[in-house]
């Protein structure tokens, strides 16, 4: 198996205007920086992005928003982002808010071939509107459907030509889940390693879930909330 592509521009081929993309990351942590830049270079429009967050004004998915390439965001928390707010209030940008655990579980459902799952998150709130409620053992659950997206874009720490991926610390977050959920999954990695050098016991995403892989360049890995303690 050799799923290596030359670069981000080649990796995103086939992503067209109006498509739905799953994008890994939590905040600015573990986001596919190179693919985001390539999407801007390509200028694909009217995207629907399923991603836990929407970046900040000048980084992450915020760059796609600035370039007005996103029609709709499906997220759990859109954070502090002035351009996002402007586009949303002006009606240019559609936003669908989903509880974070529901977002994660709908990815898992897609990757595990479960058409729908039950979760108690959102019962009795506006999130439940129009959704099927079912009681198990006296507790109410909402029926939530698996995502179905043509492309997923994820960022890993290490990967090999088979598409096997290893993530680092909390940069794992939604990445392995979205990798499982895309019909075509694109992985950018900090380090592309030779096949056989990853410990088979410690692969987070087996290559069967990954279709294209490349080593990204110049990761900025910006910190959103730099917080430090005083030396004691």
């Amino acid at each position, binding site marked *: 198996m050799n799923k290596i592509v030359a670069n981000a521009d080649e990796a995103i081929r086939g992503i067209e205007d109006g498509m739905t993309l799953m994008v890994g990351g939590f905040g600015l942590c573990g986001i596919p920086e190179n693919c985001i830049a390539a999407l801007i270079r390509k200028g694909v429009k009217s995207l629907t992005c399923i991603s836990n967050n929407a970046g900040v004004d000048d980084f992450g998915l915020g760059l796609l928003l600035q370039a007005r390439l996103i029609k709709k965001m499906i997220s759990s928390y859109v954070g502090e982002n002035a351009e996002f707010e402007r586009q949303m209030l002006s009606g240019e940008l559609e936003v669908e808010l989903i509880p974070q655990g529901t977002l994660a579980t709908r990815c898992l459902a897609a990757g595990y071939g479960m058409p729908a799952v039950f*979760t108690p998150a959102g019962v*009795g709130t506006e999130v439940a509107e129009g959704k099927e409620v079912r009681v198990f053992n006296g507790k109410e659950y909402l029926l939530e459907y698996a995502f179905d997206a043509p492309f997923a874009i994820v960022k890993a720490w290490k990967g090999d030509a088979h598409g096997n991926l290893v993530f680092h*610390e909390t940069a794992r977050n939604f990445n392995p889940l979205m990798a499982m959920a895309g019909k075509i999954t694109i992985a950018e990695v900090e380090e592309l390693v030779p096949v056989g050098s990853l410990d088979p016991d410690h692969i987070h995403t087996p290559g069967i879930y990954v279709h294209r892989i490349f080593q990204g360049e110049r990761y900025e890995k910006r*910190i*959103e909330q730099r*917080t*430090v303690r005083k030396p004691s």
Partner: protein
Amino acid sequence: MLDKIGIAKRIAREVRDGYYVNLGIGIPTLVANYIPHGMNVVLQSENGLLGIGPFPLEGEEDPDLINAGKQTITTLPGSAFFDSAMSFGMIRSGKVDLTILGAMEVSENGDIANWKIPGKMVKGMGGAMDLVAAAKNIIVAMQHVNKAGESKLLHACSLPLTGKKCVKKIVTELAVLDVLPEGGFKLLERAPGISVEEIVKATAGKLIITGDIPEMVID
């Protein structure tokens, strides 16, 4: 009347040895500082970590290592990383013993509103709806009244709900209260120097007062 640190200190007394705890943003985050030494408690961050440590020293920040509030953190020995599905899986299956979070409003039947104010920019619920719907024990840390002087402990929430019938306990600058399964805020403790009358005045929902109400111990 308690300040934020006082509220955090009082809540820290609810933590038990061996607990796995999820701390929300704001006052709940401060609770970590007041968990008694020698008590074995593991903090969970819903973005995929068990074993949150202190903030890093300047120069030791790691962009791959953040908490659910996107702050740089460290880990403690014995920590484990996992993906977001497992993270909410352990929350949903009741493995997280205690969730502490803030609120805009709580109703006397345990409803909580903490994510949306109609007419204002909505940032999203993040993991709050999952946490309140699933956690087996939820303590709310909040001010008793809002900036306009109105009670946040209500008969029914006026804001869009985050979850229904889920709050078990509330710690405010004035009091500690249990939310009874049958409805009603049962007053348990007064903040130092606060009278029962002041708490009655600040509570719009059904308040249940039985016998003498002791002053709380926070240190």
